[in-house]
């Protein structure tokens, strides 16, 4: 079981790292930052994976995303000066793999289903799905962004001297 867990954590981190490198390239991130972004993304995503497991507290996805983003923010501030890049260059690609894409997709799905079903019972069901997925998605994104930005705010001096 322990081996399975480690494999899952490794797999989660690996795919998060691949996603981070790809999304770094879209924003024209310097090549020297790719590895750092990948490692930070892998660490962040693995942290969220572990703390949301039922055996490890089974934390709610919004809180676990916020905590993982906070860890990403701290790591980004610490590593930014090593690669001479602003902290946001490191944490943005690392945050992207945590974007709740499926919640966003299900929100659109529920919205369209709401519009297509006028019967009260069915409409109410889809409206519930719309509110549930929409709110979860919004608060995950908000938690992630605030969580990652707080370390930049806390360690202002370190954050803004990274390119020195």
């Amino acid at each position, binding site marked *: 079981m322990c081996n399975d867990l480690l494999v899952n954590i490794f797999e*989660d981190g690996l*795919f*998060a790292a*691949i*996603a*981070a*490198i*790809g*999304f*770094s*390239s*879209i*924003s*024209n*991130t*310097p*090549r020297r*930052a790719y590895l750092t972004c990948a490692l930070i993304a892998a660490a962040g*995503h693995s942290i969220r994976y572990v703390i949301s497991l039922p055996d490890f507290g089974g934390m709610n996805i919004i809180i676990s995303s916020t905590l993982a983003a906070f860890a990403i923010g701290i790591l980004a501030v610490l590593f930014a000066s090593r690669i*001479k*890049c*602003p902290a*946001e*260059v490191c944490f*943005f690609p690392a*945050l*992207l*793999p945590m*974007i709740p*894409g*499926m919640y966003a*997709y299900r929100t*659109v*799905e529920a919205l*369209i*289903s709401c519009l*297509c079903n006028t019967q009260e019972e069915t409409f109410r069901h889809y409206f519930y799905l719309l509110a549930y997925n929409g709110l979860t998605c919004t608060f995950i*994104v*908000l938690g992630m*962004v*605030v969580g*990652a*930005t707080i370390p*930049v*705010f806390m360690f202002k001096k370190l954050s*803004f*001297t*990274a*390119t*020195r």
Partner: protein
Amino acid sequence: MTNNTDIHEVASFLADYASHLLGCGATCIRIEKNTHRMAEAFGVESDISIMPTHIYVTACGKDASHNGVAIRKTASCGINFNLNARLSRLSWEVADNRLDFATAVKRFNKILETKPTGKWEVLFLTSFANAAFCRLFGGDPSAMLIVFISTLAGYRLKQIMLSDRRDVRLVFLCASFFSAALSAGGQLFGIGSTPEIALGTSVLYLIPGVPYINAVSDIIYKHYLCAFSRFADAAVLTACLTVGLCTGMLILGLKWF
């Protein structure tokens, strides 16, 4: 800075610098700090006002009658973290190494010539990234392959349309339509066990994450106007990609979810 010409040149340079930082996706606090750092090194007092589409810079020498104002439209250089990092480094070089004004301008112009990441490199890395994204959302290998192909095609379309200088909203709509239409094949032909994850993930490479994140940072530092502007821009693009996704599903006759 001793005369009016100099002070105007400094104000113009600072406004150009700030407009490029804003254009490449730097947060307002970074723009303010970098610009003030350089102004201080040049021996002038400066003030900067960051509006959603324009930058206003005033520079004032020791003699209050010597002052200059410059207004610049936000540079349309697209999100570019490499440019952001190099411009930020320039501000430290000016402050720490006491670069003179002419050298700073020369270095600034050289930085603007920086070439963006190669288009093929970005195309393939993004496609692999979106396929990895699909796996993180629970997609099977077939779904990952579908997402890879649809991202490759959609992102290439985005590159072509952007190089033809098409409106960015139209670009997002067309690219998401194209990607969604291709990935809908998984559902139409029953490929793999998670075709709906492939369809949902295929357009996620278009999510404008940087403006969303920058908007929150701007709110923290009380730049509410810029924050709202960045958020509205990102929301419009997200709406465009949603319309593209839905149109793709409608035209292909997919059951609405």
